[in-house]
């Protein structure tokens, strides 16, 4: 292959990197109204009265909106295919405010200074309510977070609103209790994963205006243009046909921009005033008024026989969705159904529990989408089981894990009575290679490094999906321009990952050309066909497959057209990317000539070649990773340093080795941050403490030493050129592998993330006492 599996450079790399104005705020018109949001200082309150007169009277203020000015129709900001599983539980502005930072009023003014001044002039009188802050005590709490009766759900998600239960899940196979009772060894532990912030460098932002036809145009840093259009249509009660959403370059997303956190606010200003408006969240709002990863508690019970054959896995989970239910039921269920199939030898498995509402910032989609949480619990328990069995943890996994060709009833694509078959996996090779790369044989479990420092190694494995089976769809259009170059139109949303480039590579492979001959144009809901957007690790797999179909269609059209022009039968010509030639060597036309004759030659052309391809997967083939951590723990301080992190990945065919490698490195580092220090924390009044980079620490350059990445490619038969996904799976292994390494170094099992020096030190002190 000439284009696929090649380290091709990103088509936008040089320009984004050297500071060209290609992001949302760079494109906003200079005189756009500045939109600011007045926010609730209380975790739970009802607005008794709100006086905006003084603010409205201030010169330069264009409008001040309160709950009295918005449609009384609840909606969700979650970017999901319709009908969304997320509850319609919010209004643009509500008389009830449900977390510190919840929106109270929208102010639009000619400049920021005026908008800020106006905010200070708004007088709000609150009736303060008792907030629900502890998610472990939310169920049945005296306060009900969503007491309103016009909340809507599209289908049953197990909501029990008056008990603060937003959603619930119960899945599994076999008789877990029986298998556990018959197990010779049982591990039973409870694990906590924290809320994590996306902390993408470009904060949330959108810019809106009315176009020449009076339609609402929204330029947004979003992963989900088509969902934004639908969300706005419902929230603002205007037809979808009156809305256009454009996505320029995005300064990072990580799932955060799979929730339409900001678009609705400037949009309503533009509708009310007829003027352009923009809203740019500062870092504090980005941390405290959008979404984070769902914090979860997962109790695992795992039973095995003495040989290490796993009999049963039971996961009882509880998830905190905060004040609104964006992605609440899906993140929750994914934590079960994308972790349980890993251990296919288990006779019985179960995943069960509730998602609760609390009066904190809503949770939402974040890279890993529940698997990260589930895997921390599952893999930590596996490591503990290995310890109990006195067995090498790699061997325990090899004995029990799912292998290529096996079937599992929880695996995506399964139907009742018809478990799906795992079509591709090299997880066994990933583990073997990872052991070599980290030096498992020599280093497991620990090496004293002299003095008060000790090194330990640990491991974890994981899977994810590639798009959402039966739901995600993508359509791609390719047109042949009037010279032999193409335009590829897609509404997938490259957020820096390089997915635009990868689509171009796939099209170029089929059309036997190079990516400089392919213009990739993304994303605009007016002119580009539907795509669910870039999330759920879908773009390479779902949009990639659509791209191949479109490119094959284009190829066929080129051959047919040229054959007609040359008056030769279709099966007597061949196309090599540059020209279509008759097999007998008598005639030939270059692609430039074909394109020219189609579009420009008088009397002969009249046919623009436009090809389309659509795809939606029946399965969501899982990529796999074996992750290995080597840490050094300072026994005096409890500080953990990651010396080396090895990840060996099976993402099927690697479409672009260098971009894939950076995806892995970036995801691992985000996972290391989650393992060691990232933590969204609140005061006992429910105010977020970690709303800046001083309080919420993400890894900096000096925190990261060695990262080792290797690929062990399987071939996924349903994948584009055999590829599976890579974007999310990469974040899952560091928390459990690092926890394991810390345990192997100093004998302390930290079961509540992040693994702070205090927890490690306290663990060592308690162990000494015991």
């Amino acid at each position: 292959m000439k284009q696929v599996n090649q380290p091709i450079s990103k088509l936008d790399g040089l320009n984004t990197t050297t500071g060209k104005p290609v992001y949302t705020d760079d494109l906003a018109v200079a005189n756009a109204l500045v939109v600011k949001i007045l926010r609730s200082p209380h975790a739970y309150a009802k607005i008794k009265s709100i006086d905006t007169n003084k603010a409205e009277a201030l010169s330069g203020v264009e409008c001040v909106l309160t709950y009295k000015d918005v449609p009384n129709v609840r909606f969700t900001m979650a970017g999901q295919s319709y009908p969304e599983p997320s509850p319609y539980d919010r209004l643009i502005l509500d008389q009830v405010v449900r977390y510190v930072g919840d929106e109270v009023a929208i102010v639009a003014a000619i400049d920021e200074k005026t908008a800020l001044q106006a905010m200070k002039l708004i007088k709000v009188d609150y009736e303060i309510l008792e907030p629900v802050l502890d998610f472990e005590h939310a169920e049945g709490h005296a306060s009900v977070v969503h007491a309103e009766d016009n909340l809507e759900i599209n289908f049953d998600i197990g909501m029990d609103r008056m008990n603060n239960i937003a959603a619930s899940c119960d899945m599994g196979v076999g008789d877990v209790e029986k298998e556990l009772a018959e197990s010779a060894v049982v591990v039973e532990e409870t694990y906590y994963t924290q809320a994590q912030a996306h902390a993408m460098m470009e904060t949330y932002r959108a810019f809106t205006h009315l176009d020449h036809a009076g339609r609402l145009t929204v330029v947004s840093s979003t992963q989900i243009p088509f969902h934004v259009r639908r969300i706005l249509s419902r929230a603002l009660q205007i037809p979808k046909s009156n809305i256009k959403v454009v996505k320029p370059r995005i300064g990072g997303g990580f799932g955060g921009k799979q929730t339409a956190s900001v678009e609705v606010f400037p949009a309503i200003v533009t509708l009310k005033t007829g003027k352009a408006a923009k809203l740019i969240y500062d870092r504090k709002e980005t941390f405290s008024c959008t979404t984070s990863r769902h914090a979860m508690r997962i109790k695992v019970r795992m039973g095995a026989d003495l040989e290490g054959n796993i009999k049963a896995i039971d996961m009882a989970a509880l998830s905190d969705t905060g004040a609104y239910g964006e992605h609440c039921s899906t993140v929750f269920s994914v934590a079960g159904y994308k972790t349980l199939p890993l251990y296919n030898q288990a006779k019985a498995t179960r995943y069960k529990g509730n998602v609760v509402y609390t009066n904190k910032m809503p949770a939402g989609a974040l890279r890993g989408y529940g698997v990260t949480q589930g895997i921390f619990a599952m893999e930590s328990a596996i490591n503990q089981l290995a310890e109990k069995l006195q067995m090498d943890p790699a061997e325990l996994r090899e004995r029990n894990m799912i292998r290529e060709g096996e079937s599992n009833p929880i695996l995506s694509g399964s139907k009742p009575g018809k478990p799906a078959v795992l079509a591709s996996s090299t997880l066994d090779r990933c583990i073997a290679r990872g052991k070599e790369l980290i030096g498992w044989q020599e280093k497991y479990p620990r090496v004293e490094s002299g003095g008060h420092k000790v090194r330990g190694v640990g491991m974890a494995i994981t899977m994810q999906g590639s798009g959402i089976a039966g739901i995600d769809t993508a359509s791609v259009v390719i047109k042949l321009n009037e010279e032999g170059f193409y335009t590829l139109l897609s509404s997938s949303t490259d957020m820096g990952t390089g997915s635009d480039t990868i689509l171009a590579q796939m099209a170029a492979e089929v059309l036997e050309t190079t990516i400089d001959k392919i213009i990739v144009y993304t994303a605009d809901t007016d002119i580009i066909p539907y795509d669910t957007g870039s999330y759920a690790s879908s773009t390479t797999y779902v949009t990639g497959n659509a791209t191949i179909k479109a490119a094959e269609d284009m190829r066929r059209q080129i051959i047919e057209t040229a054959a007609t022009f040359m008056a030769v039968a279709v099966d007597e010509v061949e196309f090599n990317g540059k020209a279509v030639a008759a097999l007998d060597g008598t005639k030939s036309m270059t692609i430039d000539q074909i394109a020219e004759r189609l579009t420009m030659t008088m009397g002969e052309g009249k046919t623009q070649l436009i090809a389309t391809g659509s795809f939606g997967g029946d399965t969501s083939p899982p990529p796999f990773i074996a992750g290995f951590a080597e840490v050094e723990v300072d026994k005096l301080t409890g500080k953990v340093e990651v010396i080396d992190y090895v990840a060996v990945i099976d993402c099927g065919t690697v479409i672009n080795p260098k971009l894939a490698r950076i995806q892995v490195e970036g995801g691992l580092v985000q996972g290391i941050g989650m393992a060691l220090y990232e933590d969204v924390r609140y005061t006992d009044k429910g105010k977020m403490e970690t709303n800046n980079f001083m309080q919420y620490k993400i890894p900096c350059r000096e925190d990261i030493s060695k990262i080792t990445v290797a690929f062990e490619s399987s071939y996924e038969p349903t994948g584009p050129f055999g590829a599976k996904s890579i974007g999310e799976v990469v974040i899952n292994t560091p928390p459990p592998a690092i926890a394991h390494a810390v345990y192997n170094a100093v004998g302390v099992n930290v079961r509540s993330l992040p693994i702070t020096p205090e927890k490690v030190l306290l663990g060592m002190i308690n162990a000494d006492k015991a």
Partner: protein
Amino acid sequence: MRIEVIVNNRKIEMDVENNEFLVDTLRRYGFNSVKRGCDTGNCGLCTVWVDEKPTLSCATLAVRAAGRHITTIEALQTEAKEVAEFLVAEGADQCGFCSPGFLMTVLAMKKELQNPTDEEIKHYLAGNLCRCTGYVGQLRAIKKYLGVA
């Protein structure tokens, strides 16, 4: 208040508020390469040169820029492209939002440090956060650019 600043070797008169930070002024005057990533001086996205020294423009009051030489990446396209080519070759160009500030620091480092070690490079660039790349790819690229790989 009206100040005179030399931005990218051209004298510009700017109207600024007393409490306005340089990052916001520069963006207001169309120097869109300059990004803001935080409110606390922690991310490095807003890095420009003030009298040739890499400086956080979000922590510099615009009035303090009066009479100074400000350089943004718009004026250093040739040099920036040279660094960018190494980043792109490594695949370490992701969303790009951190890049202008990062490159301004890298270019300053090149002038300041001779044959730096990995630790010296990381230390010099420590104030420039990146959430996409995980840093190690950037380090590989920068070492090649500096000829110390």
